[in-house]
C-alpha cells in the first residue's frame, strides 16, 4: 500500500513548488492550517518572559546532551540492556531495516502496526517490510490517511494536513469496504478507529518512534494524543522503537521542560493526552505489555552534523514542527514540494546530512531568511545561520577546506564561479567599479529583457540612467 517517494529535490523541487503555487485549493489548505497552528501556539505562551526562559532552558538541555552524546548513548545502552530492552545500532537506513526485518523474521511476524515515527519514514520502513512480505500498517490517523492515499506525510506532526475532509471522506468511501461517504469528522474518526482496533489486536509487532531517551533510567518517552502509540507499544508481543542517535537526554528531570516546549510549540496544547514512559518489556507476573522491546539507534548522517560545532546545533531539534508552521515558504508550497522526509526549515538543514548536499542544496536557498523559524524554535536552533552556511558549502570548491559535507560544492558551476569572480573584482577595486558602473548606466538600453529566473515573475532589472555618484555630483552643483 505504501509507496516510496523518489528523492530528487534538485531536479524537481522548483517544479513541485510551482505545482502547489498554482493550486488554489492546496494553498488554501496550507494557509488555513498554518494560521490555525500559529494561533494555537501563540495562545500557549501568553507570558513572553516565561517562554524565553523556557527556551533558554530547553536549548541548554539539548546543548548539554549533545556535548555529552557519546557518553550518554553508552549509558543509555547499558541502562536499557539492564532493563531488558535490546539495543541495536544502525549507520544507514538499510542497516536499520535489516535489523527490524531480522527481528520480524525471527518471531515469524506477518503484520506490523506502526505508531507515528518520522525516522521510520526516513528509512523507508514500510517499503522494506512489504518487500519482504510483511504488512506494515500505519495507525496514527493522519498517517493512516496518507498511507491509504498512497502518499507520504506533508507535515511531521500533522501528516494529512494537505487534505480536506471532503478528500478524506471520498478516500474512505473508495478504499474501505462497506464505508459510505460522510464528511462528518467524528464519523470519519470512528471509521478509522474501527479498522485500526482490529489491526492492533492482530499485529505481531508494534513499531514506534521515540521523543526522548533518558540515559539515567533507560527509559523511552513517547508523546501522543490518539492512544495508537500506546497500543503499538503495549498490545503486540514485540515492540520495536526506532530513533535518531541525537534524541538522548541524561536525566529524567530534563524531560519536563522539553515536553512542555514540545507540546505547546507543536500543536498549541498545554500537554498531550498521553505521555508514555517505557522502561522495559513485560516482567514475570505482569499480564500485558510486549515480551520483547528493541531500540534501533540510527545515525544516517547525524554524525556528519555532529562533527561540526555549528551544524551540530541542528541535532538539538525536538521535532515540534513550529519552524514549518511559521515559515512563509512552507505555508505556500507545503511539505511534499520539498521531496524529503523532513520538510520546512528543519528539513532544509537536516536533510543534507541524510541525503547529501548535492541532492538537497536547493532547499537551503528556498528561504527568505526572515528568521521566523529562529524566533519560534523552542530550543533556539540558529536555522538561518545554518541555511547560509549550507549555501556557502554548496558553492564551495569541492577540494577546499570549506567543503566539509557530503555533496559540498554541488551548486558550484563554471559560469557562476566566473560571474561571481568578476563581481568580486569589480566590487573590491574602486577604479574598476567606477568604470563598470559608468558603462552599465550608459548602456542600460542594452539590458536583456529575459533575465532567467528573475524575469519569470518580475520585471527586468535595468540599471539607473545615472549612478549614485553622478546624482550626488549633480546635487553639489
Amino acid at each position, binding site marked *: 500500500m505504501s509507496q516510496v517517494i523518489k528523492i530528487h529535490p534538485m531536479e524537481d523541487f522548483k517544479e513541485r513548488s510551482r505545482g502547489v503555487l498554482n493550486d488554489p485549493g492546496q494553498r488554501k489548505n496550507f494557509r488555513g*492550517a498554518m494560521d490555525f497552528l500559529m494561533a494555537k501556539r501563540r495562545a500557549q505562551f501568553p507570558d513572553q518572559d*516565561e517562554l524565553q*526562559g*523556557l527556551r533558554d532552558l530547553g536549548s*541548554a538541555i539539548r*546543548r*548539554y546532551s549533545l*556535548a*555529552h*552524546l*557519546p557518553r550518554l*548513548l*553508552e549509558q543509555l545502552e547499558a541502562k536499557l540492556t539492564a532493563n531488558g530492552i535490546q539495543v541495536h*545500532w544502525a*549507520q544507514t537506513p538499510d*542497516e536499520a531495516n535489516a535489523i527490524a526485518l531480522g527481528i520480524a523474521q525471527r518471531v515469524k511476524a506477518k503484520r506490523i502496526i506502526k505508531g507515528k515515527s518520522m525516522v521510520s519514514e526516513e528509512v523507508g520502513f514500510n517499503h522494506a517490510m512489504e518487500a519482504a512480505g510483511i504488512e506494515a500498517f500505519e495507525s496514527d*490517523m*493522519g498517517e493512516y490517511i496518507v498511507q491509504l492515499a498512497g502518499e507520504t506525510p506533508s507535515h511531521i506532526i*500533522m501528516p494529512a*494536513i494537505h*487534505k480536506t*475532509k471532503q478528500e478524506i471522506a471520498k478516500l474512505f468511501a473508495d478504499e474501505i469496504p462497506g464505508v459510505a461517504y460522510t464528511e462528518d*469528522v467524528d464519523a470519519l*474518526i470512528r471509521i*478509522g*478507529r474501527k479498522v*485500526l482496533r482490529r489491526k*492492533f*489486536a492482530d499485529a505481531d509487532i508494534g513499531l514506534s518512534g521515540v521523543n526522548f531517551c533518558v540515559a539515567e533510567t533507560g527509559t523511552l518517552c513517547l508523546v501522543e*494524543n*490518539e*492512544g495508537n502509540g*500506546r497500543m503499538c507499544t*503495549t*498490545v503486540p508481543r514485540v515492540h520495536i522503537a526506532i530513533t535518531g*542517535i541525537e534524541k538522548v537526554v541524561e536525566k*529524567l*528531570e*530534563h524531560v*519536563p*521542560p522539553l*515536553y512542555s516546549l514540545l507540546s505547546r510549540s507543536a500543536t498549541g496544547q*498545554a*500537554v498531550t*493526552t*498521553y*505521555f*508514555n*514512559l517505557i*522502561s*522495559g518489556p*513485560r*516482567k514475570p507476573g*505482569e*499480564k500485558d*505489555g510486549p515480551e520483547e522491546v528493541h531500540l534501533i539507534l540510527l545515525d544516517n548522517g547525524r*554524525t556528519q552534523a555532529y*562533527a*561540526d*560545532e555549528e551544524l551540530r546545533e541542528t541535532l538539538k531539534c525536538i521535532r515540534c514542527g513550529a519552524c514549518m508552521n511559521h515559515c512563509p515558504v512552507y505555508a505556500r508550497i507545503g511539505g511534499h514540494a520539498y521531496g524529503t522526509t523532513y520538510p520546512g526549515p528543519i528539513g532544509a538543514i537536516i536533510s543534507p546530512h541524510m541525503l547529501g548536499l548535492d541532492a538537497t542544496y536547493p532547499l537551503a536557498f528556498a528561504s527568505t531568511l526572515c528568521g521566523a523559524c529562529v524566533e519560534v524554535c523552542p530550543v533556539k536552533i540558529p536555522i538561518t545561520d545554518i541555511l547560509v552556511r549550507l549555501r556557502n558549502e554548496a558553492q564551495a570548491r569541492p577540494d577546499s577546506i570549506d567543503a566539509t559535507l557530503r555533496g559540498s560544492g554541488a551548486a558550484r558551476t563554471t559560469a557562476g564561479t566566473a560571474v561571481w569572480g568578476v563581481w568580486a573584482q569589480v566590487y573590491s577595486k574602486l577604479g574598476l567599479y567606477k568604470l563598470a558602473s559608468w558603462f552599465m548606466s550608459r548602456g542600460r538600453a542594452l539590458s536583456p529583457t529575459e533575465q532567467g529566473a528573475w524575469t519569470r515573475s518580475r520585471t527586468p532589472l535595468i540599471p539607473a540612467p545615472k549612478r549614485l555618484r553622478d546624482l550626488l555630483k549633480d546635487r553639489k552643483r
Partner: protein
Amino acid sequence: MSARDSILARLHAAPIAEVPALPDVKAWFDAHRRNEDTDQRITRLRAALEAVKTEVHDVSATDWLEVLLRIAAAKGLRNLLIGTDTPHGDVLEARHPENLTLIRYTDAIDSWRDVLFDDIDASLTLARSAIAEIGSLILWPTPSEPRLMSLVPSVHFVLLDVATIHADFHSAITTEGWKDGLPTNALLICGPSKTADIQQTLAYGAHGPRELVVLLRHAENADQGAAA
C-alpha cells in the same frame, strides 16, 4: 568495526570547544512554581482536565462507589473491568452491583485479547498521583492493574486521592523519586484519546478511551496536606 563502534568513534572524534554546565532544571521550576494549597491544586487540575472533555466528580472515601455506579448506570455500561487484589476492586466486588458485571483482569492478555477489545465497556484504575500544572493523571500500571486497562475500554474511570496532587511534573518526578526506579510503563494521562488529523477538527475517541471519568476522592478527615 561494528555499527555501534563506528558511530561512537565518529562522535568521540568530534571537537567540543566548550563543555556546557549541567542545566539547573530544579532552579527553573522552583522559580516558576505557584505556592498553592490542596484546594487550589484541585481547582487547577479540574479546570485543565475539563478543558479536554474529562468528566470530573468530587467523591468521598465512602460515597465514591455509589457515585461510580450511578455514572455507570447513566452511561448504560454493561460491565466494568477491575484489577486484582486492589482495595477499591474488593470494595466494588463486595457491593455486588446490579446491572453491572464486574470482570477481574486475572489472566494474561494473550488468552483474552479479543474479549478485551470487543466486549469490555469500561475499566476502573487508581491513579498514583496527579499534576496540577498540566492537568495530568499519573498511572503506574502494576500486575494488579495492568497497562491495557487504561487504554482499551471505551470508558475509563480513574480514582484519584486529592492529597496526591503535585504542583508540576518536575516535583512529581523528584518527590516520588522516579529516577531510582520506574515501572515497566509509567503514564501521564490528561483526557480521553483525541485527534485533530482531519482538517484540524478536534475529535475525541481516536484509539484509546472515548471518555475519561475522574473521581476526585477527598479524605473524610480533610487535614491531609498536598503532595510537594
